[in-house]
Each structure stands twice: as structure tokens, then as C-alpha cells.
């Protein structure tokens, strides 16, 4: 579903990604771990199409298409979802209307009719309950004045409503207390299906206590230096990243 080949990219002339290779198939959940500044968020942003990064080489294919040629909204409409590390506040924009506009944009792109009010309301209430997001926050402006945990729950709610084909979570676990972390993990687990690919970017192993990845990759200094199963995450937890970096340098 997602195939990244020898991807290199820079920000303001500084090379951040130095040849990333990664393949995610439908039904798989991959975790990308790595020290700060290794390029994890850069990778997530480039996949979503954010401005400010120049791709200098390599390619990314998503559902058979050249992903890097698509506009941000086109990627979203083809089922690519990015849960952000810092969800943005939209003062004055009602959370529920935003979600509905977003759902309808995706549905229109798929040639489906817009969702009717009744089923939308029913769905949004049910899913808000699942991610333990206070219903009152649905009526407020998007993320405006939300706590860190509430913002992340809101991201997971959006993900659940939009039912992406490929979900990328960019350090969604950062700064969360244990309850919020569990809710996020539950949200991710609930969405795991045979059709959906997931890419979870995280700095800490602790999220992986609740989410069982099919594969774990370590991104360091712009390259994937090690890939393995769940046990790799535990080894990182015990030994840190230093030894991997040394091995990579050697």
C-alpha cells in the first residue's frame, strides 16, 4: 500500500532524510522509533505533503500512485490521514461542523453522497464516547482551549470518523498521561483491520505496551538503521538508541 524507496529530503538546505526505505502493506501496523532529530516527524510530514521540505531523491508510491505528486488534500481524499503531534486550534470553527465538512469532502471524492445529519450525529456521539472525549467539546471550536490530552483524543476521533486507508500517527503519545495513552492505543487497535495500513511514529516504547506492531523500525540520522519485530522495541527500551547509532556508524 505504501512503498518508500531511497527517499532523501532536506529542510533549508540541511539534509534530514538520507535514504529511507519502507514498505507498509494493508493490514499491517508499523512503528517507527528513533531519537529526537532523527527525521521521524519529517517523514510523517513529507508523506502528508506539508510545505517547507524539499524531496531531493527517491520515490513514494501509495496505492500504486506517485504520492509526492499529489496535493495535501488529494492525499487526504485518497485515505491518507495524519494524526498530528501538535493539533492546530481553529477558533470560531465548530468542531462538529469541521468534522462533517471533512467527512463530506472525503465522501464526495469517493463519489458517495454527503452523510445525513442523523447518522452523522449518531456516529460522532458514539465515537466520542469510545475515545472518552467530553461531548461538550464537540460543540466548541476545533481544539481551541483543549488540554493536550483532549486534543489527542480529538485527533483519534477524527481518525475513527474518517476511516482512513493509511493512518499515520506522529508522536500522538507524546505528553499524554497513562489514561489518555490507553485511549489513544484503544483507538488505534479498534481501527486495525485487514484493509488498513498504520504507521505509528513514537519516541517511547511505552505506547507499544498497548499496541502490538507487526514491525518496528529504528530511524536514526535520516536512515532506517534496524528493523525487527516487537522485541526490538523492548531492546531499545532496555539499551537506549546509542548502541544502534554506533553500529550504524561503524
Amino acid at each position: 500500500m505504501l512503498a518508500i524507496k531511497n527517499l532523501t529530503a532536506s529542510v533549508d538546505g540541511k539534509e534530514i532524510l538520507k535514504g529511507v526505505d519502507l514498505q507498509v502493506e494493508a493490514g499491517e501496523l508499523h512503528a517507527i522509533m528513533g531519537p529526537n532529530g532523527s527525521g521521524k516527524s519529517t517523514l510523517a510530514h513529507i508523506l502528508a505533503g506539508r510545505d517547507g521540505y524539499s524531496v531531493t531523491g527517491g520515490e513514494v508510491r501509495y496505492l500504486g500512485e506517485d504520492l509526492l505528486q499529489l496535493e495535501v488534500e488529494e492525499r487526504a481524499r485518497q485515505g491518507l490521514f495524519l494524526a498530528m503531534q501538535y493539533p492546530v486550534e481553529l477558533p470560531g470553527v465548530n468542531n462538529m461542523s469541521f468534522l462533517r465538512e471533512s467527512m463530506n469532502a472525503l465522501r464526495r471524492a469517493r463519489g458517495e453522497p454527503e452523510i445525513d445529519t442523523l447518522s452523522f450525529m449518531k456516529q460522532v456521539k458514539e465515537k466520542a464516547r469510545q475515545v472518552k472525549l467530553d461531548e461538550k467539546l464537540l460543540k466548541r471550536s476545533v481544539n481551541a482551549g483543549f488540554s493536550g490530552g483532549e486534543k489527542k483524543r480529538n485527533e483519534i476521533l477524527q481518525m475513527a470518523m474518517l476511516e482512513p486507508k493509511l493512518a499515520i500517527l506522529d508522536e500522538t503519545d507524546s505528553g499524554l498521561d497513562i489514561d489518555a495513552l490507553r485511549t489513544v492505543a484503544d483507538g488505534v487497535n479498534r481501527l486495525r483491520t485487514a484493509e488498513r495500513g498504520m504507521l505509528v511514529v513514537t519516541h517511547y516504547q511505552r505506547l507499544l505496551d498497548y499496541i502490538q506492531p507487526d514491525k518496528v523500525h529504528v530511524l536514526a540520522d535520516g536512515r532506517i538503521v534496524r528493523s525487527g519485530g516487537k522485541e526490538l522495541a523492548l531492546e531499545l527500551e532496555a539499551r537506549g538508541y546509542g548502541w544502534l547509532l554506533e553500529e550504524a556508524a561503524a
Partner: protein
Amino acid sequence: MGQTNSEMEALIAAEYAQGFITRIDSDTFPPGLDEAVVRAISERKGEPEWMLQKRLEAYRHWLTMDQPDWAVINHPPIDFQQISYYSSPKQSPKLESLDQVDPEILATYEKLGISIEEQKALSGVAVDAVFDSVSVATTFRETLAEAGVIFCAISEALRDYPELVRQYMASVVPHKDNFFAALNSAVFSDGTFVYIPEGVKCPMELSTYFRINEAKTGQFERTLIIAEAGSEVSYLEGCTAPMRDENQLHAAVVELVAMEDAKIKYSTVQNWYPGDLEGKGGIYNFVTKRGDCRGDRSHISWTQVETGSAVTWKYPSCILRGRDSVGEFYSVAVTKGFQQADTGTKMIHIGENSRSTIVSKGISAMQGSNAYRGLVRIAGKAENARNHTRCDSLLIGDRCAAHTFPYIEVKNPTAKVEHEATTSKVSEDQLFYCRQRGLTEEDAVSMIINGFCKEVFQELPMEFAVEAQKLLAVSLEGAVG
């Protein structure tokens, strides 16, 4: 990020859709202003002698005044001798029905989306249309007359109801009030007159569309609305002008009088030609609007959506004379290109328990400059007066400007005055976030701006709120939704 700013600007830089010129024969005075011109205007209008004398008095006073220079606006000096002070479409002087209106003019309003015929038939909104200096069509007059409501051109009111006009005109905005009010008092050529008798709730929305067509003309309309005790009226004005390279002057005066328990709601959607994106051309909009809450429990509410004009200078105000009187000001002002707006309100509290609310939303994009200027004055006798002011600025890009000048004068210790202000920016982060959720940049910007303006839009009569939203979408096409 420079790149993205210019992309955003390309999206904002939508064309002015109302910029066409209507070719009709007109009776237009040569440019220039002196006493003979003032007399000639009065004569064309067949005015009573006292009106002429008032005009001359205003003109002579105007000669002694200087143009005010305290606003945050920059423009070359206006040469008042280069302006024509009267222009009228050529046709029979008095129109009995719409059938007598030049079809070109009706087509013009049609093109502007204001079908006078259609409005008459469908929407239940009574329309007065002012084309250059002359009122060309007033619809629904009979229906209104049954309710006792007078809704007509001010030149007609001077003929048909001279005593009413004489009693109220200049009683809220005297000719000595300011430079532009003095000029208007001397040369105003038409405008709208509304009279709501005691206890009458006006059966429909009243609305006036102003159109400047002729080149090198100024438009100086005069609007006077009188709401007798216990009456109620909602009035809306819309404004457009063709695209022309030279600047044109618009200096209107609007006076509202609300007696005991009367309520006047005055809404403006101003979309005069703003000039091109290099700052060439556009309307200079210097307007004096004031409402007098004369009676106890009277209520005056101003709502304005200002998206046009090269320069906007206007401060719709309320004099809260009556006990428990209420004044409101809701404003959205958009400046892009080289547009400049210095706008706000004055709430003058004189009556006990008088209350006022000010909500101002300024949106600046490209090199636009937007200033909020507001005065809240609580006089010594105004026991328990209250004001709440909320003043928000939204910036788009990094070359625009927003200024806030709140003046608060309190002479009574029981007063409660609150002022809140915020400045925010439509950020790249917000746009990326919305696009990642499948929305286009245009939709995203439109959503953010509509969210920002929501409090003001919900004050507009329903059908005009939709119009205002559309106008904002055109005015800031694309990037800043």
C-alpha cells in the same frame, strides 16, 4: 514561507465582480463646487427655500473647515473642484412606476444580483435604488403606505413631507459636525427617507442599493430614518461602483431617530470598488452615521460588513439619551490590496441604565490596513451605564496591519465598561491541518474567516447574512476563507 504568502495572495486577489460601467445618457454637472452649484442642485430637486438656505449655510461653514487628518489612512489630497456634484440618468423627472425606469439601469441592478422586479415579487423586501445622485426606483410603496410607513427618496420627502424632514434633518448630525458632514449637507443629492409611525412594526425589511456609475462624480446621499414611539424597523443598504482608475468620493450622512421603545436595526453591506491591487482607483468612503436614542428604552443597532472602498472612514454611533436605551455596533471590515479602513463607533451614554455592545472584527490581508477606533463616553448623569467592547483582528500574510484605538471616558463612578481585544493570524499550520482533513485551501480560509465573523453575521437579517458570506468569499477568494 514567502512563496506560500504569495500563493495565498493570488487566491485573495479575486476580481471585483461589480466593476462594469452602465452606458446611459446622463445629466451631469461639470466638475467644481461653488454657491451656484449648491443652488443648482437645490433647484433641480425643486426644494423649498429653507432647504436651500440650510445648504448654503452648510457650504459656507464647510469653506472654513479643514479635512480631518487624525485617521490611520493615507491618500493624496482630494481636489474638491475636480468632482462633479450632481449626476442623474436622463429621463422624465418623476417616475410613477418601475416601467418608466431606464431598462439599462434595471439591467444594471439585475447584473448586481439585485433584481428590483424580482425582489418586489418574491422576497417581501422593499427596495429603493439610488443610481449616481438620483433615486430611481422604490418598490412596495403601496403596501408600506397601508401600514402608514413612508419609504421614499429624500428628494420626494422634501416635496411631500417637508415638515417632517425639516423637523428631523440635521438634528442628529448638524452640518457643523465634521468636514464631510458639512460637505454632504451642502451638496447631498438624494438618499432615502423612512418614517415609521407610532406603534407600527414595519411589515417588511427596507433596503436601499447605492450605485455610483458616472465617472468623476461624487455620491452624497442623505438618509433619514425616524421611528416613532413603540415602532420597529430593519433597514439594509448595499453599495457598489464600477472599476475606474481615478478615485471617487462618497460622503454620506445617515441620521436615525428612535423615540420611546422604538427599535431601529440598520445593516450595511458596503462593497464599493476598492481599487486595483496596486492601489490605483477605488472609492474614498467618508461617511457620518449616527443614531439618536431619544426615547426611554429605545434601541439602535448598527451592523456593517465593509469589504469595499480604497479608503473607509466611518464610525456609526449611538447617542444613548433615553433611560434604559440600548446601542449596538457589530462590524466586519476587510482590507486587502492597498485598502485602508479606519472604522469603529462612538457610544455616548447620557441616559440612566443605558447599555451598549461593540463587536468589531477586522480582517487584513496583503498590504491592507485596518484600524478600529472607538469611543465609549459615560456622561456624569448616566447612572449604571454599561458597555462591553470586543475587538478582534485577524491578519493574513505578513505585510498587512491592524490597529486598535479605544477611547474610554467615564464621568460616572457607577459605570461598568469592559474592553476585550485579540489579534490572531491565519497560519500555515491551520491551512495545512484543514487540507490534511480533505478541505481545499479556499474552503479552509473561508471556514476560518466565517468562524471569525460569526458573531457579526448572525446579527444580519437572514438573506443578507448569506450575501455577506458570499461577498467575503469573493473578497478574499481562496486562501483565507
